[in-house]
């Protein structure tokens, strides 16, 4: 029944997968050919990762058939899958931070002598793997001491550390900056030339168009269509994916900037040893100030200091008054909101309901005189935010952890909107979010700015920063390289400052 040509390496037919009552995949199919990059495109929660986990032997398909190299393929666990010639880089970082890079890369495959682990050989082998891929990583370092981007590279090294016929990359670039992504693209090119099939998942359209040979669109766990890259445009793909047309990705500004308005926040010489130095900028109501830099340039650290999470020297003025927040509570009380970079760790309480998460930062507004929660007012307000941001949730009582990534991100946004912030910090607000949801989030950002909220937008995606910001602060290794506006806002200038080629 698998009438595959010798060109086809992997064929998926009519695969379904349910988690309890949730049907993540319904009759999925896919045909992957040797030596080609096959991209899976779909909204958050479409079922991409689920399909990959089935291939990797983490999950078992509820029904359906898979053939690898013409033979039925049914891995019982990840080791099985690896032995059968499959390599996978998982979307969630699956590393152990208390072990070294080498120990992580070769986990469960440690070189042994007389049954004992040969630590020297372990390091040698890991180093060879890393060198072969051209990754700039010290294999003796503990993973816990690496930046997120470096961890992503280790994850890639771990996934690609053995010979494979099919390589799966699930959103490998979501926390990589362009230069690191280039390393990955080189690796992919080499894999291709060796005849390896690559299954690629990403939400970044530019990158998809550049890398892919074939593109398969899936929606709500179902197969939609497969295309040759040369036969489609980004617009068509997005329309297929979200089920409607989208004319623009970055909505235009709806109001005029007033450059002479008094700044709501001014930062002077903010310094924290070893992380950032002499950070100075100010921002006016209604302004969107972009923060660009390579991953690790220290932007998040600056924002954490501003928000009262960490101590730093220097002066911060809020509405003209000098302030020094010792805790987020104080920052929030003055009107600062912070959509953090990692929604699962710092943003959401996954086990609790959508409603509780949305009211979380504004809880004192919904507290009566005796400390009782005014739950009716709370629910009304939360429901309003759910409506305004078009959050797709069954009800306010649904656990937030069961929502798709993009909707989770919107909950975090809603949480901060409810505090009516005067300054809103957005740290990578669209990481891992599909195009449709991205557009929704951009619209909200524009709307907030129009209402007078000052917005600090941190992003590692250059088009996003360019498309949304009024001015851009470029950071490089903990210092501000330049603050750009107007005609200076072009990719070349920004990249030059970000990489430190110009100062």
């Amino acid at each position, binding site marked *: 029944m698998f009438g595959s040509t010798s060109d086809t390496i992997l064929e998926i037919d009519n695969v379904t997968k349910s988690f309890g009552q949730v049907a993540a995949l319904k009759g999925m199919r896919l045909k992957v050919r040797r030596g080609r990059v096959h991209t899976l495109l779909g909204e958050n929660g479409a079922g991409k990762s689920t399909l990959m986990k089935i291939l990797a032997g983490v999950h078992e398909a509820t029904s359906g058939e898979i053939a690898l190299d013409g033979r039925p393929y049914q891995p019982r666990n990840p080791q099985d899958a690896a032995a059968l010639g499959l390599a996978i880089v998982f979307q969630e970082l699956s590393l152990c931070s208390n072990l070294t890079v080498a120990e992580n890369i070769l986990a469960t495959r440690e070189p042994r002598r007389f049954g004992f682990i040969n630590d020297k050989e372990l390091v040698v082998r890991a180093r060879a793997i890393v060198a072969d891929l051209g990754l700039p990583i010290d294999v003796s370092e503990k993973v816990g001491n690496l930046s997120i981007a470096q961890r992503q590279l280790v994850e890639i090294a771990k996934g690609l550390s053995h010979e494979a016929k099919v390589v799966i990359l699930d959103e490998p670039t979501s926390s990589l900056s362009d230069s690191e992504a280039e390393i990955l693209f080189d690796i992919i090119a080499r894999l291709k030339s060796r005849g390896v099939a690559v299954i690629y998942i990403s939400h970044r359209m530019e990158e998809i168009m550049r890398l892919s040979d074939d593109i398969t669109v899936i929606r709500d766990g179902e197969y939609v269509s497969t295309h040759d890259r040369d036969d489609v445009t980004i617009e068509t793909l997005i329309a297929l994916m979200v089920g409607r047309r989208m004319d623009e990705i970055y909505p235009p500004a709806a109001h005029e900037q007033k450059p002479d308005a008094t700044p709501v926040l001014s930062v002077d010489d903010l310094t924290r040893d070893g992380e950032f130095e002499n950070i100075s900028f100010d921002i006016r109501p209604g302004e969107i100030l972009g923060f660009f830099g390579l991953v690790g340039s220290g932007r998040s650290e600056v924002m954490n200091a501003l928000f009262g999470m960490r101590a730093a020297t220097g002066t911060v003025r809020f509405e003209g008054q000098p302030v020094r927040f010792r805790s*987020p*509570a104080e920052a929030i009380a003055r009107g600062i909101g912070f959509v*953090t970079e990692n929604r699962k760790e710092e943003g*959401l309480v996954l*086990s*609790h309901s959508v409603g*509780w998460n949305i009211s979380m930062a504004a*809880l*004192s507004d919904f*507290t009566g005189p005796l400390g009782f929660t005014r739950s009716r007012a709370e629910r009304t307000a939360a429901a309003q935010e759910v409506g305004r941001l078009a959050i797709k949730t069954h009800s306010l009582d649904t656990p937030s952890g069961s929502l798709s990534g993009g909707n989770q991100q919107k909950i975090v946004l809603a949480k901060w909107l409810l505090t009516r912030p005067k300054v809103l910090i957005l740290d990578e607000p669209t990481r891992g979010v599909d195009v449709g949801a991205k557009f929704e989030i951009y619209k909200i950002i524009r709307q907030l700015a129009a209402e007078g909220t000052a917005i600090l937008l941190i992003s590692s995606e250059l088009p996003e920063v360019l498309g949304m910001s009024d001015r851009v602060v470029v950071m490089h290794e903990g210092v501000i390289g330049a603050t750009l506006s107007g005609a200076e806002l072009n990719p070349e200038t920004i990249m030059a400052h970000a990489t430190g080629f110009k100062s």
Partner: protein
Amino acid sequence: MTQQSELQAAFLRALKQYGGILLSLVMLCVIFSFLNPRFMSVVNFMNILQQVAVVAIAAFGMTWVILLGEIDLSVGSIIAVAGMVGAQCFAFGLGFAPALAITLLAGALMGMLNGVLTAKLLLPSFIVTVATMGIYRGMVSLPTNGAPAMIENSTWTAIGTESFLGLPIIIWVVAVLFLVNHILLSKTSFGRRAYLTGGNREAAVYSGIKVDRLKITIFMISGVMAAISGVLLSSRLFSAQTNAGMSYELDAIAAAVLGGTSLAGGVGTMVGTLIGALIIGVMNNGMNMLSVPYFYQLIVKGLVILIAVWLDVRAKQAKR
């Protein structure tokens, strides 16, 4: 919605939420009634409630602590210290009210120490409270050199022996404390903060919750609850025993966990804990009534805990 259908809905919700554990409680009661007709009597239920009071109240405090993802193993020792502090106050000539106030204050202080060490010095609460368990237990024996201390105050001892409006005072105390804790946890912002912090500490900090202060307050609640348990216990026994409350922390934890409180934090209710405590109380009482030898009681108790938790886990999985 009409009043009635609202009640009905609430009942169904409770059944769904506490189904697994309620089932265990009902099953135990049925089995014991079947084996001993005297089990099913008002007097005996009063007995059970009184016997379970000390553990139940400590378990209310423990529920808060576990909700935060922490643990308090010093509860049993605080129970003993509280009785001894009370006894010493009377020996010193104080009256009932100041003695009670000092006892509860002592509980709050001991809880505060646990909280400060956990929240400020960032030591794991398990090890902090293992250590203070020893420290507080050692302290109990200091005033009397290990001997029990008689309590001669009649108001204090009346708590454990007298009735009010036909119900033993102890039962009133449990009922009031249950309500206070239940309302505090489910209806106030303080309770909400505990749930959120237990669910994700990092997210709570970023959302402006003062996690350290919350943690210290909650360890203080646990300390005060344990102190009240100590008051009840010593009033029931007319004396402060230096080995009072030994290993009651495990019963309190078992009650909370039986009631659905997750040791990972973020999940739990006072209603569940009360049911959990009742299961333990019914089990102890029922087996005594049947003259089950002590060793078998230990075994059966362990088995019942396992079965009840398993039923509960299963019920929750099925709900998903």
